[in-house]
């Protein structure tokens, strides 16, 4: 499990070239900046079609949506053949490339336990192309393909729990992080960097344009997501050991997370209650797993 990091330990040097071409207050840009601060220069970055967050100073390569996993596998095996264990193959994908289109490729890379590190910036829809529904879209969120009207109430399904889907593959390391907790995020990147095998980090990165809130509130929204239990911060090692990194004494009501975002504006009280019950029930399970220090299947 990752060790705690403090503010003075954060390196001053940047791993990305700023400014990028993201929107104002972009969560994904923050995620990229924090990740590559810790990763250092010896990485080969892989990308798939997604929002142009910060370009890193390390070499990078791009592929198609479905090609994320195979492309990473190729790089990792080539590095092994060359004997360059100091260079890491790292992916910086969006939620579409991890949760639905790219899922197959990544899943088989996980099954083969390739020596790659996948970082996902999860903004809960295909924001690059205008906010279409992805596997990461939460229930009742309005996207451009889940309209709100008499016959539709936004996204009809719950978000994919990708971390547990990968945990079922018994891979060495899985973690979730949020841009509102930079020390936690960077500690996890630092720990995952040197593990041998397939490891994945899911970062929730709010999108002011797609989630429709004031760009200044990016961190506020991300923080309330963690504090209300919508996006719990945890680590899973070898598919079983479990640790919850952030445990508030009491969860905040989810309205604090939903209210600033105009994509949830249409929700009725019953719908909010439904999400509250769903979130609390899940949180209880996480707490139990944390107590046992492992996931029981």
């Amino acid at each position, binding site marked *: 499990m990752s060790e705690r990091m403090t503010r003075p330990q954060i390196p001053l040097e940047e791993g990305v070239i700023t400014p990028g071409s993201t929107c104002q*207050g972009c969560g994904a840009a923050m995620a990229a900046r924090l990740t590559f601060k810790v990763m250092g220069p010896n990485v080969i970055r892989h990308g798939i079609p997604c929002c142009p967050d910060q370009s890193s100073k390390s070499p990078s390569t791009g592929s198609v949506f479905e090609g994320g996993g195979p492309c990473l596998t190729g790089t990792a095996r080539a590095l092994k053949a060359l004997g360059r264990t100091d260079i890491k193959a790292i992916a910086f994908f969006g939620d579409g490339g991890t949760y639905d289109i790219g899922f197959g490729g990544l899943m088989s890379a996980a099954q083969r336990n390739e020596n790659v590190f996948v970082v996902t910036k999860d903004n809960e829809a295909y924001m690059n192309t205008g906010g279409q529904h992805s596997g990461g879209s939460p229930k009742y969120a309005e996207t451009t393909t889940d309209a709100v009207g008499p016959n539709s109430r936004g996204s009809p399904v719950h978000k994919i729990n990708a971390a547990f889907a990968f945990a079922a593959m018994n891979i060495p390391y899985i973690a979730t992080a949020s841009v509102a907790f930079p020390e936690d995020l960077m500690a996890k990147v630092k720990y995952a960097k040197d593990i041998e095998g397939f490891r994945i980090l899911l970062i929730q990165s709010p999108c002011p344009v797609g989630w429709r809130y004031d760009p200044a509130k990016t961190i506020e929204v991300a923080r309330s997501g963690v504090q209300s239990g919508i996006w719990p911060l945890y680590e899973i090692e070898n598919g079983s050991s479990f640790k919850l990194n952030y445990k508030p004494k009491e969860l905040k009501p989810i309205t604090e997370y939903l209210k600033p975002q105009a994509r949830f504006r249409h929700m009725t009280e019953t719908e909010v209650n439904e999400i509250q019950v769903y979130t609390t029930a899940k949180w209880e399970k996480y707490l139990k797993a944390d107590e046992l220090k492992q996931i029981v299947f």
Partner: protein
Amino acid sequence: MIEIRLHGRGGQGAVTASRIIAAAAFEDGRYSQAIPMYGTERRGAPLTAYVRIDNVRVRERELVHTPDYSICFDEFISMNQIIANSLKPGGVVLANTKFKAEELPLAGDIKIATVDATGIALKHLGRPITNTAILGAFAKICPEISMKGVEKAIYKYFPGRIGDMNIAAARASYEQVSELVPAINKEAPKEVVEIVSGGYGALKDVSGWRVFEPVVDEEKCIGCKNCWIYCPEAALEWTANNKPAMISRSCKGCGVCANECPVKAIEMKRVEVKKK
């Protein structure tokens, strides 16, 4: 046929404005067409949109190359010659700026009108979305469009309370727009940074993206590094005396730093546009 070119930034509603103008002309019983031009534009990046209005059906489908009117939604782009380029002789430029029409560094056989649309938008909408705030001014200087049509079209796109706010902004700019003045300059000043791309990689400059910029009160600052670590663009440099300082070319003016400062030592102040 009259052709209109709109210059704006993503998030200012230039594309919506092009649709509103086309809809307003349609409400007046004419044929119209709105064309947005997208690249990889995001919120904050410069973009253009086009409108055609005619008494007969508009058959053309290509971009507008020599417009009669050019409307600029952004204060920084208003200081740039690109908004006056390739206009028809005697063409009209409507710029969003605090300066008077005579003071703008634009050149050519053009007429200029100005209005402080950002100020109007901040007053009526509380946000620097300047599209409807400039449409009222356009209805005044352009005889082809009526204010009634613009109001109808705004209601069509923003029904209810938001529509009322936008119409108030449009009416205010209808009152405040300056007279049309011929351009005095014969030659345009040379550009230092190309406005459209703003440079690439390490040379990229986004200083024109922001409407508000962070001003640090070093007396109040406790040196917690919150603003520095939460800045998406690494636009706050950590100086030797343990205080943050803004890197002008990197800051996009999102306001995250001011929002996250625990002692409120950072204030977002409206950027003063200076003449070159």
